[in-house]
């Protein structure tokens, strides 16, 4: 984990060993902690997915009892969303935002330490519920009442764990916004920021706006269960459907929280390996902002089947379809960036291109789900499972992996093994499709999600999906080995690492000093996304 070399000038009173990591306020250390936390949770959540896929290898009940199966689907989702994707992006934000905008550190370093260290406790609490009387939460990660109120002893622990996760991400988001607004290097105007910074700024606002709503919703569940309130209890004048509205008012912006930073990552990687500036920089910014805005007015497309007036269904259908427009702008911009570029296909670029293709497939199935009358057939089937796994696994997760390959030489000072990187890429891409593509077919044929058993005719596709899942899972062990090997040694990385890399982080040494940009770089004037010349300019100035 020694991604940073000790710097004698600054380290004189810095604790070493484990205390260094517990007390650290350094954005690079905290970024590393977040990324490792996310990586560990990725294997835990992945293990749960393999339990699900093992049970679904054959029809009938084989290995686990239905209650445990349901708690696996629930926990897999909670771990992957709150424990893997969100912390990974926060880790990338910690590592990269100060480097990209020329800041010394995050704006609020002490709070930064807090927001990370809450997480291991939150997840220890969440995972411990699996061993409690009545088992872990098994009503789905959406926590719909009244089903979720039947959770056993685990219930209050689940709610408090979600509160902690929420607090952690709100604090992380506040830190990101404060850093971006106040700590940019002189001359770094908002419209000169790298897109990763832009997408994170917008994501952070989304987090601040919706995580408290989730906190409110789960608090209502808690008081309904223990303090005789009737928010969702029809006998007391409440309405269970209200919870679904509150949950998805959080839940839909949440899915953009999970994807917007990946758009930033891809927008960094594609220009580097196409050796061309990003096509349509400002349209990318506006598209991101439009997606964020639209995400607040589409939530009820998750609940077409609960019953809604026709006008409501039409509104939510059309608003949802509208999101395809800014998303399409992004995809076309990436493609235009590659158009006639001098492309090379290093591992980060491969993951980025796979992201564009496979995320778009997930986007299209999302459009199909948006069609209200069709949604009545797709609702709660494996088609939905296929859709959101396409946007989250070869979407968010591939973007995170691409980001790790892209910046790992910068972080560690060593080049990774291109052979193992490419092996990891091809195995992941092939197996991810073997896993999730057949789910479209069984879903359209009517296989419901979150059920441990299925009708015989779904067997073939389920067996294919299970084989794919194990292949994908084992491929990630290559990734783990590669990351550890790269941290330990390897060919020395140059400062710029990639021939076409642009941005302030590449003007620093690889690995960067523990405290970087103690004197802010000056990026006044020449910095221009359209001339693609700024790396040299900034490098000679600073």
């Amino acid at each position, binding site marked *: 984990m020694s991604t940073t070399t000790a710097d004698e000038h600054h380290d004189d009173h810095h604790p070493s060993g484990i205390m260094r990591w517990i007390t650290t306020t350094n954005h690079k250390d905290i970024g590393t902690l977040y990324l490792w936390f996310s990586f560990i949770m990725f294997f835990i959540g992945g293990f749960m997915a393999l339990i699900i896929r093992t049970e679904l290898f054959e029809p009938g009940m084989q290995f686990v009892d239905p209650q445990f199966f349901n708690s696996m689907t629930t926990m897999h989702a909670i771990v992957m969303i709150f424990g893997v994707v969100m912390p990974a992006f926060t880790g990338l934000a910690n590592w990269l935002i100060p480097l990209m905008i020329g800041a010394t550190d995050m704006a609020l370093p002490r709070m930064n330490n807090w927001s990370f260290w809450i997480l291991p406790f939150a997840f220890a609490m969440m995972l411990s519920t699996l061993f409690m009387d009545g088992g872990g939460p098994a009503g789905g990660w959406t926590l719909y009442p009244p089903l979720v109120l039947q959770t056993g002893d685990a219930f209050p622990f689940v709610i408090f764990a979600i509160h902690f996760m929420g607090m952690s991400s709100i604090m992380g988001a506040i830190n990101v916004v404060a850093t971006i607004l106040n700590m940019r290097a002189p001359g770094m105007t908002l419209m000169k920021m790298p897109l990763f910074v832009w997408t994170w700024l917008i994501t952070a606002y989304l987090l*601040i706006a919706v995580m408290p*709503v989730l906190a409110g919703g789960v608090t209502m569940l808690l008081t309904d269960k223990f303090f005789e309130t009737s928010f969702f209890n029809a006998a007391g004048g409440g309405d269970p459907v209200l919870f679904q509205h509150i949950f998805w008012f959080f839940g839909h912006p949440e899915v953009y929280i999970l994807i917007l930073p990946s758009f930033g990552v891809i927008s960094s990687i594609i220009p580097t390996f196409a050796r061309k500036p990003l096509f349509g920089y400002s349209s990318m910014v506006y598209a991101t902002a439009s997606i964020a805005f639209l995400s607040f007015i589409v939530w009820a497309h998750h609940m077409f089947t609960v019953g809604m007036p026709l006008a409501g269904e039409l509104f939510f259908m059309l608003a949802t379809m509208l999101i395809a427009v800014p998303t399409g702008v992004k995809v076309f911009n990436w493609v235009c960036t590659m158009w006639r570029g001098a492309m090379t296909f290093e591992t980060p670029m491969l993951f980025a291109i796979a992201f564009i293709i496979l995320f778009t497939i997930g986007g299209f199935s999302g459009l199909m789900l948006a069609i209200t009358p069709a949604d009545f057939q797709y609702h709660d089937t494996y088609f939905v499972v296929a859709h959101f796994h396409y946007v989250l696994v070869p979407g968010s997760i591939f973007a995170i992996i691409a980001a790790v390959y892209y910046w790992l030489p910068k972080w560690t000072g060593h080049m990774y093994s291109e052979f193992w990187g490419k092996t990891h890429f091809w195995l992941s891409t092939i197996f991810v499709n073997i896993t999730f593509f057949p789910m479209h077919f069984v879903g359209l044929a009517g296989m419901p999600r979150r059920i441990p058993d299925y009708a015989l005719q779904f067997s073939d596709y389920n067996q294919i999906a299970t084989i794919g899942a194990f292949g994908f899972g084992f491929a990630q062990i290559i990734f783990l080995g590669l990351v550890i090997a790269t941290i330990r040694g390897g060919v020395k990385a140059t400062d710029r690492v990639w021939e076409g890399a642009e941005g302030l982080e590449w003007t620093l040494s690889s690995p960067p000093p523990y405290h970087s940009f103690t004197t802010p770089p000056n990026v006044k004037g020449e910095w221009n996304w359209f001339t693609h010349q700024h790396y040299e300019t900034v490098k000679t100035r600073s």
Partner: protein
Amino acid sequence: MINANRKSASKLFVVAIAMFGFGYALVPLYDLLCDITGLNGKSDTVTQQQQPVDFTVDESRTITVEFVTNLNQGMAWDFKPEIAKMQVHPGKAYQTSFFVNNKTMRSMVGQAVPSVAPYAAANHFIKTECFCFTDQLLEAGETMEMPVVFLINPALPEHVKTVTLSYTYFDVSNTADNKMINLKTI
């Protein structure tokens, strides 16, 4: 710089806390929306006192009203309508009954929650007398006949030919200091 950071952070914390409040504000907003649209079949509350003045009876239209009874999970009562459906004319008041029997060995308090389908009918289905306005205390083994008086507003949209009135009985023996529960919007 440090001051600017603190300022940004405190502003953003205020936003976060306000959004927590907004989550709670969604509760009355949702009720309001349901009242306006008839969403979720929440029908008009019309008690005897505020009974609407003379609707003209529309003999030319006949609407089928269906009665459906449900028991919430764990509710050990028998609950049936006197008749499964009846033909009514809009504007005229009708009476029907429901029967409920406490099959258990202990006294229990039940609360019926009504729902009207389709939504377009919810705001036009008026109950002037209903056991759902209060909860019921039934001794062990006790049976009760409960009347409902209702009428359909002649303004009911043309395309609605059938209206379903559904009741779900909830066990409220252990809730709310019982423990008269005041249902405001049912």
